């Protein structure tokens, strides 16, 4: 009882912690070596800097380079024994086509699907502008970040993932053409050779 009450907020999710879920899912998928890998904190992002009504992010990221994305040559799938437990999804507004910087997405909401492999794991979810303010404070700015309920969703190694997103006016409720960037943040796993090769 005392231990539970002393846990930081992010861990009080049915008392299952991020690393517990990673290991549980890895075991179900037969990823027996994942438990020996390096734990980390990870953020991956991708952005579409050409205005459009709908964007597919992360797909085809292997063909884009930093700073448009930080995914590198493997694109929208992790290497062997690398994974990410997505705990937050944030949307931002690239300020130019070069993708070097971004601004707050004021009065913009984002309707999106998160697809991992052949499965849609988040469907028609909307990140509303300033929608988390009851328990989120980024100075005086409205948030465009979604905290995933439960512990989060695991993107396993070597499985493709993508986000299909449509920006819209938060108050007008009209599909809005513009640039979009998105990050996935959470507990990650990095490849670590524990034995000599």
């Amino acid at each position, binding site marked *: 009882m005392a231990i539970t009450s002393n846990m930081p*907020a*992010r861990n009080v999710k049915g008392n299952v912690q*991020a*690393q517990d879920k990673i290991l549980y899912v890895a075991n179900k998928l037969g990823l027996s070596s994942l438990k020996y890998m*390096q*734990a*980390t*904190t*990870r*953020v*991956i*992002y991708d952005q579409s800097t050409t205005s459009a009504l709908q964007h597919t992010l992360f797909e085809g990221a292997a063909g884009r380079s*930093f*700073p448009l994305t*930080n*995914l*590198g040559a493997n694109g929208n799938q992790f290497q062997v024994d690398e994974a990410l437990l997505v*705990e*937050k999804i*944030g*949307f*931002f507004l690239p300020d130019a086509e*070069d*993708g*070097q*910087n*971004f*601004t*707050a*997405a004021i009065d913009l909401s984002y309707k999106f699907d998160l697809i991992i492999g052949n499965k849609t794991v988040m469907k028609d979810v909307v990140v509303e*502008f*300033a929608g988390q303010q009851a*328990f*989120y*404070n*980024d*100075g*005086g*700015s*409205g*948030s*465009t*970040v979604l*905290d995933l309920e439960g512990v989060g969703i695991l993107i396993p190694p070597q499985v493709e993932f993508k986000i299909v997103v449509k920006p819209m006016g938060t108050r007008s409720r009209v599909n809005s053409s513009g640039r979009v960037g998105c*990050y996935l*943040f*959470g*507990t*990650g796993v*990095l490849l*670590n050779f524990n034995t000599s090769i």
Partner: protein
Amino acid sequence: MSQVGKLNMVNSKLGATMQGQQTTRYIYDTVNASAAGATFYNFFQTFAGKTEFETNLTTNKLDSSESMVIKSIYLTIDAGTAGTLDLSGHMNLNITVGNQVVLKDFNPAFNATNRGVSFDRLHSGYPDARFIEVRLLTDIIIPPQVNFKATLELAETDAVADTSITLGFKGYGVIFSAGNTF
């Protein structure tokens, strides 16, 4: 596992068991731009000629009786004479301990200023993009006598000749304690 437990476990695996003084540790290094427009910065690799305010290390490893857990990463930039560069643009931060990459292509810029996309639920929202701190979700250990380094790649190319960036690691640590040894 608690950070104290993880630190003890890793040190034990490496044969570096010790009864040190527990503490809160902060290590930092400052790097100047190699040239105007520079986008790559290497931290904890050269220490010669730096003052105690630019770095508090003299080598890129902790002492034989010292170790730490990285819990937070701090970045600050001095844009230099007539410089305008800040830390609001995208960046790739990599931290390597020994031969292992422990933080890979991490982008702290989402925590810069208050643009509504910070990682932390309660973000300070400090509006000046020359200062960033990010709290990590996982405990990253720097064991005793193991080399570590960090590299930072900036997207923006506005650095001038005297732009400098400071990178700090903050967290739980153990430092030498004589105890009953002497």
